[in-house]
């Protein structure tokens, strides 16, 4: 994997929100590198900043109230955060595209599906037969009866089909990066599997890089090559999926894994993480996780840990070696 060509590099990304109550540091120093054709997963509890990270990749965070406080997002070496409006527009949907979590509201309710797909194509590609392209896309995402579905309004489709349409729309211009922001949360369990399978298939076929955002560790195990675990706006641990699942090093990752119910441990207890997500307005000093960490020591309360590299794995914890 290490040989892969670098496609997207995020360096020290900081996205803050100024709200009525004060400054919210939603993303505070996130960095990672997404190689071409790879599938990464960004996991964490809700409110940890993963969606904001995702949106920031194409500078989609609403400004205001949000603003980019620092860092760079380099897509093929160009900094997305410093792009002109026109350049950004050419980038979005073309080189980097998104699949959002609730297809029911993410599709425009008053346009036909065909139109919405066609719009994505027309915006970035010239000289193609839009209609055939739309049909091809719908077939590609496995939508039966594409011809008639094209003329439907979004609300006439089931959730699974809507998400397939979203995916088709995202793939309309064969982007280099596909960001899937919790693509399956709003769907039934059976459909979830189908959609993930579809994503995996398309990723293989088209060779694009995928950043999968989820709070469900179990789902991504098969799919992602590398996991990035986020907590309170920071990546606390990252590494190849299998390594990380087998040997989590950060207490938070441990907690997350322990909280996943396993068939094997029927009758056994499901352990969660103590406490709850901290108030983003008042993050604790030192390690942001220390109030909930069973291993917290004095240093954790005072000093914020730095990234520590160990081969392909990174962890942000003062005491990971000890525990």
């Amino acid at each position, binding site marked *: 994997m290490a040989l892969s060509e670098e496609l997207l590099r995020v360096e020290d990304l900081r996205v803050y*929100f100024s*709200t009525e109550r004060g400054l919210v540091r939603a993303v505070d120093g996130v960095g990672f590198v997404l190689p071409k054709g790879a599938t990464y997963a960004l996991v964490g509890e809700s409110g940890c*900043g993963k969606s904001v990270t995702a949106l920031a990749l194409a500078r989609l965070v609403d400004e205001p109230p949000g603003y980019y406080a620092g860092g760079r997002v380099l897509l093929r070496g160009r900094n997305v955060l410093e792009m002109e409006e026109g350049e950004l527009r050419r980038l979005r949907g073309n080189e980097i595209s998104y699949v959002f979590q609730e297809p029911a509201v993410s599709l425009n309710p008053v346009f036909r599906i065909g139109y919405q797909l066609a719009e994505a194509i027309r915006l970035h590609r010239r000289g193609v037969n839009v209609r055939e392209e739309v049909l091809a896309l719908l077939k590609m995402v496995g939508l039966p009866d594409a011809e008639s579905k094209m003329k439907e309004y979004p609300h006439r489709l089931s959730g699974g089909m809507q998400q397939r349409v979203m995916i088709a729309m995202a793939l309309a211009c064969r982007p280099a990066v596909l960001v899937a922001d919790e693509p399956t949360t709003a769907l039934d369990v059976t459909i979830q599997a189908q959609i993930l399978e579809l994503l995996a298939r398309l990723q293989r076929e088209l060779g694009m890089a995928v950043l999968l955002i989820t709070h469900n560790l179990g789902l991504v195990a098969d799919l992602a090559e590398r996991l990035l675990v986020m907590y309170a706006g920071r990546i606390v641990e990252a590494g190849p999926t299998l390594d990380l699942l087998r040997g989590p090093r950060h207490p938070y990752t441990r907690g997350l894994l322990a909280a996943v119910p396993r068939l094997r441990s029927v009758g056994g207890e499901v352990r969660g993480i103590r406490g709850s997500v901290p*108030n983003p*307005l008042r993050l604790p000093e030192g390690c942001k996780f220390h109030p909930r960490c069973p291993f917290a020591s004095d240093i954790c309360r005072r000093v914020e840990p730095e990234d520590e590299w160990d081969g392909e794995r990174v962890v942000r914890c003062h005491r990971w070696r000890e525990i």
Partner: protein
Amino acid sequence: MNTESVESLPESMTLWQDAWRRLRRRRLAMVCLAVVGLYTLAAMYGECVYWWYRLHDETPPYKRVNLAEQYQPPSFLRSPFGGRETGRMSSLERFLHGLKALGHHPLGTDGLGRDVLQRVIQGTRIAYQVGIVTSLIAIPIGVVLGCLAGYFGGRVDDFIVWLYSTFACIPGLLFILAIAMVVGKGLLGVYLGIGLTMWVGLCRLIRGEVIKHKERPYVTAARALGLGHFRIIFRHILPNVFHVVIVTFTLRFPYAIGTEVIMSFLGIGVQGEPSWGIMISNARLRLWHGVWWEMAAATAAIFGIVLAFNLLGDALRDALDPRLRTGR
């Protein structure tokens, strides 16, 4: 967007405290609140004046005619610090004299030589009376009917919806004028005319809210505890939808004032007391000859209170019900 979840994070605060805190952070809203406070004071002062003279069985000064002083411009236009009689005074005396002159009909007098400022204050009194009494008529009707319709549904709902849709479809101002015509001219007509048309919107809103809340778990829980219907409605649901009432009140208050002005202007509103509408009506003809202060005073008074209430109502709505937010 995550800001939503950010804001709903737990903090041990009631809805009202929270709203107040939000409100306090808005400078404009606070200014409006201050303006409303000023008007309220003026109205209370006017009420005191009214009752003092009423109880002493005397004619209040704002009704006393003084033809010798008719159409005097506002005092600050009468060059209070100059003038012939100040010629031999010391500068301090002149200053004091000027102050006294400034206090003498500061906003000028009207066609019968009555002080415009006093009449504007009395107009405030009337406006507040109209705003409050119409609300006292409209809010109970709207709230009770809205709650009943939303909570019980079925026949009750059908009836109440029929009632308010019937009221709603009658052209507004004409309906008010007609009611006033039936009841008779004067404040009572104004109260009833505005009050009986104003409950409709509130009733519809409350009904919608109650229908939403009826399905909430806390209502189911209360029902499971065996509480009576009315207890559930008025002790459990109502406090949760009461912010709608507050917001409606602040937004309807200026509407009531404006309608009163129009009615008085058309001659079917307030009678015998100085209302803003009557002042405008009196001043209109003289306007062609440059007597602008009576018109200006009444107009400015109306503008101030209505603007303050409108802005305050917006801010309150944002603070109390973030879902209804209109953006900043």
